[in-house]
């Protein structure tokens, strides 16, 4: 991935424009892995950008702003998921499985299998696996972001990985 453009302006508005251009897609993709709904993920990241803008005078730096954005996306994805679960409970709707991305796609059978498997994991396992393997965060960073201990991160990663292997079965071995 190409390096992000250097941020010249210290102004919050310019920061939003430049960070959006460089990171919007990847941040929405991160959120989709956590909330499994593209429209919801776009909402989450939109809110994160607005929040970052409000905080710019304390960030003042593109790297800090990006770190803040990622953190905000992770936090808001989690609350969005919980809020939706609560709403679903109250409305007596069916399970969270209903809010997956659109159905099977041509040539995407393995992708669908992975999506379904991710949904089967516990929220914590999913979060830890995504932060560790998609964002490449360290255990300490993950612990900080999720408000849990590094030991808990290890445990969730281990169990999540095992669960994913089991759920995916043959798809796991297929290395093509």
């Amino acid at each position: 991935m190409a390096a992000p453009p250097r941020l010249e302006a210290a102004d919050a508005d310019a920061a939003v424009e430049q960070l959006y251009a460089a990171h919007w897609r990847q941040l929405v993709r991160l959120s989709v892995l956590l909330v499994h709904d593209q429209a919801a993920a776009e909402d989450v990241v939109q809110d994160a950008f607005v929040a970052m803008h409000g905080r710019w005078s304390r960030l003042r730096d593109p790297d800090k702003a990006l770190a803040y954005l990622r953190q905000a996306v992770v936090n808001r994805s989690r609350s969005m998921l919980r809020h939706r679960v609560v709403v679903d409970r109250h409305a007596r709707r069916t399970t969270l499985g209903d809010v997956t991305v659109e159905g099977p796609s041509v040539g995407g059978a393995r992708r669908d299998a992975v999506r379904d498997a991710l949904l089967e994991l516990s929220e914590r396992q999913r979060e830890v696996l995504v932060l560790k393997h998609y964002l490449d965060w360290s255990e300490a960073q993950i612990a900080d972001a999720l408000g849990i201990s590094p030991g808990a991160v290890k445990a969730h990663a281990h169990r999540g990985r095992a669960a994913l292997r089991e759920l995916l079965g043959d798809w796991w071995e297929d290395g093509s």
Partner: protein
Amino acid sequence: MRDRITDLLHEVADDVEPGDRLDAIRSEIGVRRPGRGWWAAGGVGLVAASVVAALAMTTGAPAPTEPQPVAPPASTGADAATQAVAVYYQGDTGLGLRLYREFRGVRTDDPLTAALTLVFEGTPADPDYRTGWAPVPGTFVGAEVVDDVVRVEIGDPELLLEHDPPVAQNALAIEQVIFTAQAALQERLPVQFVHDGEPVSELFGRDASEPLLGAPQDEVLAPVSLSDPSEGREVDNDESLTVRGTTFAPDGTVTTRIRRWEGTFVAAEKVDRVGLGNEAPVSFTATFTLGELPPGDYVVISEVTDPSGAVTTDTRRITIVD
């Protein structure tokens, strides 16, 4: 070295082609008021500062057990979800650290979460206030009302306790959350702190296993707290300025002054006699005509005196324009 899970996650993620939300973000960021750096802390959409200034705050005479009431803001004719939320911050008073109330304009369909986000992560508009919560990510997860109890979801309390610097600086930080939640809901509901769905048994040395109603108002609220004007407001000297606030008025009076920002020259002063025996905050006003005041920066100061002689003030900086 990419491992299997990384590959699989990328396969799912790379298939996502996000829509464009840049225009939506731009419009949510809103219009900055020219000249002054008005800004609201992150977490909620900004509305133009002129809208916030136009919201007329009035408070009725409250019953002793009700939270400080606020009348619905005057209609702006704009987006229905634009509203003012009350946020409680800490400030110094003659009686030690107490809670002051600040109104913030937000665009949200969840005023409870918006207001609490400003408590946990926000920065007060008034530079004399501060929040008792360090902005540690993951401290505040969300809030909702279930069975007439406000459930406030926070991060792992043990980790929050170990964090250095401390996440909550004092017990008053907990009261900030309770009073702000009650104000957002306009109802004195108890607040239950939860983590991972379970009630938190202890929070910073305080028993939190049962829902908390909040400490008595006269022990935690500042003796005087301004609702109007908001910090940084511009006022035309052809108009009158009505200062509004709430107070316990221990000696029955509130004195409001308009003083030049630089120096000590007091341009105007009014005393509102609200009467004695206030166990709950009562509203006060002071109306000033500004025609004689030259344009420039001023500070509005409302002041009360405790029987012990302790003086407490609340201040707002304003700019008078021609």
